[in-house]
């Protein structure tokens, strides 16, 4: 083999070595006797007022676990912090069983800490950390840095990816009753009575009215539970609304297959996020949605175009003439 060939061979080896070195993970802290890992349990969009749940796992082969710490890039709202319990699954029943694991759990600003109790569980545990999404995080991204320490003085850390916080608002379980609290405003996601609308001069901000009519029309066709814009001249004629009321032409687009898990309270891994409300189109949409049943809903655009919302129907009651709705709403202008 010539000298030139040797040089080429060495150069090739060097390139391979550099290549392999560049494939090594940046985080090497997790290779010692104290190790940690992070799991984000919440799969839904991060909405202001809701919580994101993490599981922070720690384990040590030397000494015992002493403390866990989480630092959020944006301080969480009230309710942020570690739970004092870790959990294990009972193999007989399949149920998750809580175990008191942390003595003190403190949240001060962006930092939350948990002191691990001495006991059988201080060698390996998984603590729950809840981040209550604050108003300050609206539309921003938030990251978390978790760390744990052991009695031997060792420390491990793990950084979360960046999570985007939704711009939209959410309000659950608003009860509407025909001819009573049935005038709904998207701007404050509240239902009003006719008297309240009259007294406070709210007609301009009422986006739809809930009505229940089992049948309608001369041939008594099924109509059921409906959300109707004040501008609709057909289906609200029996309400005798004052002529002075402002009637904004709200657009509604009924859906039967959008079962948002946050609005519904679980059941389906389907979520409406900002992008869905931003991209929904209302070309030639109606100013009402009728024959609504539980688990159905409607995309709604307020008359002045300020808000786009999804109104999910949690339940309806034909006898009481009520409907319970939950709303995700995005201000679009």
């Amino acid at each position, binding site marked *: 083999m010539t000298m030139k060939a040797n040089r080429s061979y060495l150069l090739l080896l060097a390139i391979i070595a550099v290549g392999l070195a560049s494939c090594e993970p940046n985080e090497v802290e997790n290779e010692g006797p104290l190790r940690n890992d992070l799991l984000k349990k919440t799969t839904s969009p991060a909405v202001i007022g809701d919580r994101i749940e993490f599981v922070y796992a720690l384990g040590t082969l030397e000494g015992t676990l002493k403390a866990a710490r989480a630092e959020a890039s944006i301080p969480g709202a009230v309710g942020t912090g570690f739970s004092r319990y870790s959990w294990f699954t009972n193999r007989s029943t399949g149920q998750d069983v809580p175990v008191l694991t942390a003595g003190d759990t403190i949240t001060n600003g962006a930092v939350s800490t948990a002191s691990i109790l001495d006991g059988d569980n201080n060698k390996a545990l998984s603590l729950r950390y809840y981040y209550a999404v604050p108003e300050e995080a609206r539309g921003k991204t938030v990251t978390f840095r978790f760390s744990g320490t052991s009695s031997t003085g060792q420390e491990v850390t793990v950084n979360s990816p960046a999570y985007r916080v939704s711009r939209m608002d959410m309000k659950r379980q608003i009860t509407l009753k025909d001819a009573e609290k049935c005038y709904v405003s998207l701007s404050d996601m509240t239902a009003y009575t006719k008297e309240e609308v009259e007294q406070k001069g709210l007609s301009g901000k009422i986006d739809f009215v809930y009505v229940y009519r089992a049948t*309608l*029309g*001369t*041939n008594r*066709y*099924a*109509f059921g539970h409906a959300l109707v814009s004040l501008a609709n001249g057909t289906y609200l004629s029996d309400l005798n609304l004052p002529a002075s009321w402002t009637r904004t032409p709200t657009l509604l*687009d*009924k*859906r*039967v*297959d959008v079962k948002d898990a946050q609005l519904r309270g679980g059941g389906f891994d389907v979520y409406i996020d900002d992008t869905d409300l931003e991209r929904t189109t209302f*070309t*030639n*949409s*109606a100013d*009402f949605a*009728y*024959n609504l049943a539980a688990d*159905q809903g409607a995309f709604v655009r307020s008359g002045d175009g300020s808000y786009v919302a999804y109104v999910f129907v949690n339940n309806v009651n034909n006898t009481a003439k009520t409907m319970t709705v939950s709303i995700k709403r995005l201000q679009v202008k």
Partner: protein
Amino acid sequence: MKKQVISTLLIAVSSVFLFGSCEKTPVDADGLLITQRSQCYMTFFDALGSDHRTVLVAGSTQIDTTALTVKAVARFGTNIKRIKPYSSVVTDAIVEPNMGVWTDFSTPQQYTVVSGNRKVRKTYTITLTLQQ
């Protein structure tokens, strides 16, 4: 000599398959197969509302393949301005313009069925009326 004959035959057969498979099959601008069929008619029509459920009253649809009309009744309360039409047509035929897009049916709409050989065209007028 026998081996040579067999080899020649094999090459010949392979060539037939090879060049045969490269023959161009006629397709239209949308990549759909153009066939020999000249039949040209609509067999089924449906109209969906914003909730992607049919808005038609069961049994109300009348397809007249001679008069080239489709008449259907939409249920009371249907927003007839936002309808997604669908149809079935005879084998290999297509419909122009494409159905399956939000369409205003407050006035009758026209769709043309084009036969599999793309030589026969029949324009249907589809009228939706609302239950009153």
